[in-house]
């Protein structure tokens, strides 16, 4: 019984020391923070008017916050940005404010509580040395032996508080500091990973759909036409043996089927990677599309447009689909295509038609969106009833 109580007390004692090891330095660093806080407030005010909201002394603040990150066993962020907009700089500042006030208070409390317990226990040994008109105050003024001998009981309360309240207090403040200082497993990164995973899955899906489409086109178009050629040539052969006059219509049919097969093959090839892209570049290829578009259309190409083949191919496809849609559905009298390249390749297709383009009903827009999503790009369409319609596609170029 006594033994178990002793062991409990011992473990409490160790907990308290641990709490003190954390909170006593907090009292010191909190106090130091409080001392320099006017300076920090000044730098923040300066940062608010500085170009790019750059915070003077951000690196010193980072170093200061990093000592605390170290103490909390948290990762030290690598972020050269010193702007107030940077999330790490914001965290540094928030922590600084908290540490200079709440941190210092918590730290002081943690130091004072055990000292008060010791003090109260010692009061009976020294209270009588203190001048009567300025007595020892340990929760109450000690002015008599009776009051002095009661004081160790007060010390017990302090001791109990130190043993039982300090460890949870330390844990709470540690958790709070961690929440303020340490990025939560980096949210942005997690989100980016999720986006990339999704777009990669979409890319694979689009790739699979593309392969199926190509296979179907080759099978239904080219292959069947060539079988028809072989079949009609077989019929020609039979006819020539029996009655050569019968052969001519078969020859003509075989010829037509061969021409069809070639046309189909050309379409399939073009849908995989339009050869014109390699020869003329994206702007040249798009100019060709525009020349074939029945609706009068202008082309503006800003800057050098060269992009990876997959991006150019998708861009070409987007413009081709958009122009087909305009010609078929929009009732437009004029259209324009704008191509520009900064980091992303941006395609804007505009028309003055009657608008109301519906993504659900047409396969064209859904096709555009799938093809764009496969490259981690974005496609937005604004098409109010009555028009005009604007399609804007941004394709990242992997740089």
């Amino acid at each position, binding site marked *: 019984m006594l033994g178990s109580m002793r062991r409990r007390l011992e473990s409490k004692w160790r907990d308290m020391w641990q709490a003190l090891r954390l909170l006593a330095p907090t009292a010191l660093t909190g106090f130091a923070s409080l001392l320099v806080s006017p300076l920090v407030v000044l730098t923040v005010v300066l940062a608010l008017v500085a170009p790019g909201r750059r915070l003077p002394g951000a690196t010193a603040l980072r170093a200061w916050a990093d000592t605390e990150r170290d103490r909390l066993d948290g990762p030290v962020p690598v972020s050269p940005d010193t702007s107030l907009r940077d999330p790490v700089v914001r965290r540094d500042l928030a922590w600084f404010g908290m540490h200079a006030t709440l941190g210092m208070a918590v730290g002081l409390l943690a130091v004072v509580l055990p000292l008060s317990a010791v003090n109260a226990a010692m009061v009976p040994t020294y209270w009588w040395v203190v001048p009567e008109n300025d007595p020892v105050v340990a929760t109450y003024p000690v002015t008599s032996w009776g009051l002095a001998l009661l004081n160790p009981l007060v010390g017990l309360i302090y001791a109990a508080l130190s043993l039982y309240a300090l460890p949870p207090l330390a844990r709470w403040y540690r958790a709070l500091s961690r929440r303020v200082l340490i990025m939560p497993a980096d949210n942005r990164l997690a989100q980016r990973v999720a986006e990339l995973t999704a777009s990669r899955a979409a890319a694979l899906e689009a790739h699979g759909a593309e392969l199926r489409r190509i296979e*179907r086109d080759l*099978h*239904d178009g080219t*292959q*069947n*036409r*060539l*079988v*028809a*050629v*072989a*079949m*009609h*040539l*077989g*019929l020609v*052969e*039979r006819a020539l043996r029996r009655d050569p006059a019968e052969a001519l219509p078969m020859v003509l*049919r075989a010829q037509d*089927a061969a021409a069809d097969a070639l046309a189909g093959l050309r379409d399939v090839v073009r849908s995989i990677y339009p050869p014109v892209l390699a020869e003329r570049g994206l702007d040249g290829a798009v100019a060709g599309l525009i020349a074939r578009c029945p609706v009068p259309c202008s082309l503006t190409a800003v800057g050098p447009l060269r992009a990876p083949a997959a991006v150019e191919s998708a861009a070409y496809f987007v413009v081709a689909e958009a122009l087909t849609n305009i010609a078929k559905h929009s009732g437009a009298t004029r259209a324009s295509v704008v191509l520009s390249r900064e980091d992303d390749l941006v395609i804007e297709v505009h028309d003055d038609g009657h608008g109301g383009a519906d993504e659900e009903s047409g396969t064209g827009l859904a096709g555009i969106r799938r093809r764009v999503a496969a490259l981690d790009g974005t496609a937005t369409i604004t098409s109010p009833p009555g028009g005009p319609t604007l399609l804007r596609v941004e394709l990242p170029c992997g740089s």
Partner: protein
Amino acid sequence: MRVVIAEDDALLREGLVLLLGGEGIEVAAAVDNPDDLLAAVDAERPDAAVLDVRLPPTFTDEGLRAAVEARRRLPGLPILVLSAYVEDSYAGDLLAGGAQGIGYLLKERVGKVATFLDALHRVVDGGTVLDPEVVSQLMVRRRSDDPMSTLTPREREVLALMAEGHANTAIAELLVVTETAVSKHIRNIFAKLGLPPGDTGHRRVLAVLTYLQGRP
């Protein structure tokens, strides 16, 4: 002879009608989907069906499933399947219900009209006709512990020709050997594949099946 045709490509379908019609084969129905094919089989009770593997609605293996169903409705109905490419699992599906009166050819074989008609006749007569492409693909897949691996190259040739539906006389002609030599090869094949003596016609089919499925 009366046949029904299922082919979704209009040009090919018309071509087949023309081709078969020109050879005195009556085309009782030429349809473009499996449902109409089965209806035509029920209504016309043809001597054979010629059909494409890929038919609507999904263009995967509707033709094969239609073939299996047609043979269920009209047991023993000779069927010649045409396919744009070789897929030995298709051949396996087709032959699972018995190899007699089954043919599986690449589509382009219709260009060699005489060979195509010969194949059709052999299927109608209850033979098994497999495209040489199917046969060579199956040959590649053989495992080393397979009885097939004990056959000599010549015996394999003979078996391949059997699989394509040729009779001994034709095999002898094609390999430029005597018919006696062919018979000897065939006896060796039966022995190596562990096929018991008995009805020769039946054993031929079993040998071909062994050949196709890698098991007796």
